[in-house]
């Protein structure tokens, strides 16, 4: 146990206290102060959600150990009065042995067998292998341009946080040790959603998965026997439940301390992990699903698409055709309703990494507020779905008209490739962002209107919002088009179609402006 780096005492979790102070604490301290901590202060999205999931698994197991089964009224009390710190600390002390980073048998969230296994005994890799933000091997660079042949030393606390994020988000694919390839982590390509309370204690209460009958057998990684090489070679297995998903060793990692103190690490051993088989009947509690071309697809981050455009995916849908919201939201909504708080807002954070095969494309954290009323009322969710669809449809039409205009301004407008080139130019131009960011700015007013069922006001408001968004987008396409004679011709020819699109959105009483406002 080099340096006896024990995560219960060692400061390794960055947290923000309610007074604004940010510092690193150990697990015992974290639970003791959970009422005074506003949230985790980790900055990389994958690690941030992985840390929350780790804390949820600990809380869940501690409650099972200390309370047996518990009901929503217990959680209600904890939400109001704070977590039962004694129960949590008792649990952590009970498993203290398993929270050492360099334990010879049970290194925390690692596989000790790699030290002796034939495949990995002689081999080590730089720590960047398990850092999603670092360039390593053939993976393209996301942020970091360092070379990984000469690995630097990294503080163990920092690496551990990165490792937890990596285990959750590792894209599937090549591993080449023990097995050739491996399954992806539980959250790969997922925009995970997490309800947030005012304090860490409240957040944990809101997001905690309920104690079910099967929960007894759903063990986190540290409560399981240490995996051996046979386990790493085994076929992918289904998750036993959320605790398993939250702490799955989707890759086998063993950190190698640089010295006796174990404060820094530069090399690790690495191999395929305990592959996770996905079961569509047991979705991740933090993942939402939306209707795709072939059945339901997991909501992830894609291209420049902001997550609010998929907002209805987080809301209840009785038909089950459009969306399957993350279970964690319904726990939170139930808890808040039981709490009897007057309908208010629920802050949620959506975060994750998007990847294409093994290439990481982007990561993102978004935070927005949802009216509680929307989480409970299916008909309100239906209305929101309708209005957001109107926004998307107008954009579709605008895109068609604007692309046709761009094509007319290009040489050989009738050629079959010109149309698709024009669409690409439009998609990569400023117009889509202009359109959707303008609509997004109207969202905070739209949501309460829908939640309060003010049908006329919603209709009027959203028409106005779409009109404004379309005008901004069209103006930016026109700027993109330039002012050559050919561009002017294209613009003059396409303008009637554009004005036709907007006609239904304009107030009936107002007269048409003499000059379109895009000059």
């Amino acid at each position, binding site marked *: 146990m080099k340096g006896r780096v024990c995560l219960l005492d060692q400061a390794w979790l960055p947290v923000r206290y309610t007074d604004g102070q940010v510092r690193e604490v150990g697990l015992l301290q974290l639970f003791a102060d959970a009422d005074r901590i506003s949230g985790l202060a980790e900055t990389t999205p994958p690690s941030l959600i992985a840390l929350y999931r780790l804390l949820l698994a600990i809380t869940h197991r501690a409650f099972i150990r200390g309370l047996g089964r518990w009901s929503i009224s217990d959680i209600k009390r904890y939400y109001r009065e704070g977590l039962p710190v004694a129960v949590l600390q008792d649990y952590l002390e009970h498993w203290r042995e398993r929270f050492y980073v360099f334990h010879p048998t049970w290194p925390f969230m690692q596989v000790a067998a790699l030290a002796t296994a034939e495949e990995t005994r002689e081999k080590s890799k730089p720590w960047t292998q398990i850092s999603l933000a670092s360039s390593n091997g053939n993976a393209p660079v996301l942020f970091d341009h360092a070379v990984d042949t000469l690995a630097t030393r990294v503080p163990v606390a920092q690496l551990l946080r990165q490792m937890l994020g990596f285990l959750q988000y590792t894209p599937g694919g090549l591993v080449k040790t023990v097995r050739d390839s491996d399954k992806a982590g539980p959250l790969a390509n997922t925009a995970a959603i997490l309800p947030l309370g005012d304090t860490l204690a409240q957040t944990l209460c809101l997001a905690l998965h309920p104690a079910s009958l099967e929960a007894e057998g759903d063990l986190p990684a540290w409560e399981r026997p240490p995996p051996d090489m046979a386990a790493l070679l085994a076929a992918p297995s289904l998750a036993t439940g959320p605790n398993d998903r939250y702490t799955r060793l989707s890759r086998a990692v063993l950190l190698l301390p640089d010295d006796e103190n174990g404060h820094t690490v530069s090399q690790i051993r690495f191999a395929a992990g305990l592959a996770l088989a996905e079961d569509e009947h047991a979705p991740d509690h933090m993942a939402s699903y939306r209707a795709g071309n072939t059945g339901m697809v997991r909501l992830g981050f894609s291209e420049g698409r902001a997550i609010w455009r998929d907002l209805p995916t987080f809301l209840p849908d009785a038909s089950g055709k459009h969306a399957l919201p993350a279970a964690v939201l319904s726990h939170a909504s139930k808890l808040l309703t039981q709490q009897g708080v007057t309908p208010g807002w629920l802050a949620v954070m959506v975060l994750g990494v998007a990847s294409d095969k093994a290439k990481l494309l982007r990561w993102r954290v978004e935070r927005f507020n949802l009216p509680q009323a929307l989480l409970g009322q299916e008909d309100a969710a239906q209305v929101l779905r309708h209005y957001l669809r109107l926004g998307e449809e107008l954009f579709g039409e605008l895109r068609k008209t604007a692309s046709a205009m761009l094509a007319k301004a290009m040489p050989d407008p009738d050629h079959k490739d010109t149309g698709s080139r024009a669409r690409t130019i439009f998609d990569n131009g400023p117009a889509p962002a202009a359109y959707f960011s303008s609509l997004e700015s109207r969202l905070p007013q739209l949501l309460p209107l829908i939640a309060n069922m003010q049908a006329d006001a919603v209709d009027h408001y959203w028409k106005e919002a779409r009109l404004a968004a379309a005008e901004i987008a069209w103006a930016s396409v026109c700027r993109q088009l330039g*002012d*050559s*004679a050919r561009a002017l011709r294209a613009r003059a020819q396409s303008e009637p179609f554009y004005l036709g699109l907007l006609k239904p959105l304009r107030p009936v009483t107002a007269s048409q402006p003499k000059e379109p406002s895009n000059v």
Partner: protein
Amino acid sequence: MSDHALEFIQHLQSLAQKNRGALAALRRSAGFAPGTYPPAFPHVERFVPASSHAEDSYRLALYVTAALFARHPQHMAGQSLATTLGRLISARDSGSIEQRFVALLAADAEDVPQYLRQLVSLLAADGHGLDYASLLQDLSAYLRPSQFDGRDDRNKVRQRWARDFYRQLTTQA
């Protein structure tokens, strides 16, 4: 429409009826840079505002308009140049007019009189009148150097011309 512009057009119309020599001088002035042909001065210069300098865009526009009017003295209020051209193109069923029009849109300020002269000749051949007062105002904006005040009036005029022209085409199609 400003009264001043209308007054100027009325003056040109009266010249067309009573003073054919003046009209000939104005027609001849088209061969020179606007505002540099002395025989045209007596007919135009009285309408140049006192505060204008020699290269003022309004002064230049007066000369260009006068030369165009002399070539085709048929004023018809409300019929902008671009609309009339749009009508001509469908009457003649000729694609070359559109090309000439696009060339006009792409033209620099110093070439505009040249292109306008060709287009007005086409209109004259088929007897289509146009609104010279609005042309005068458009030209005054078009010939104004835009790079200094950032107002980009020229672009607005070009957009209006393009819109008038192609709308006329679409409504007839």
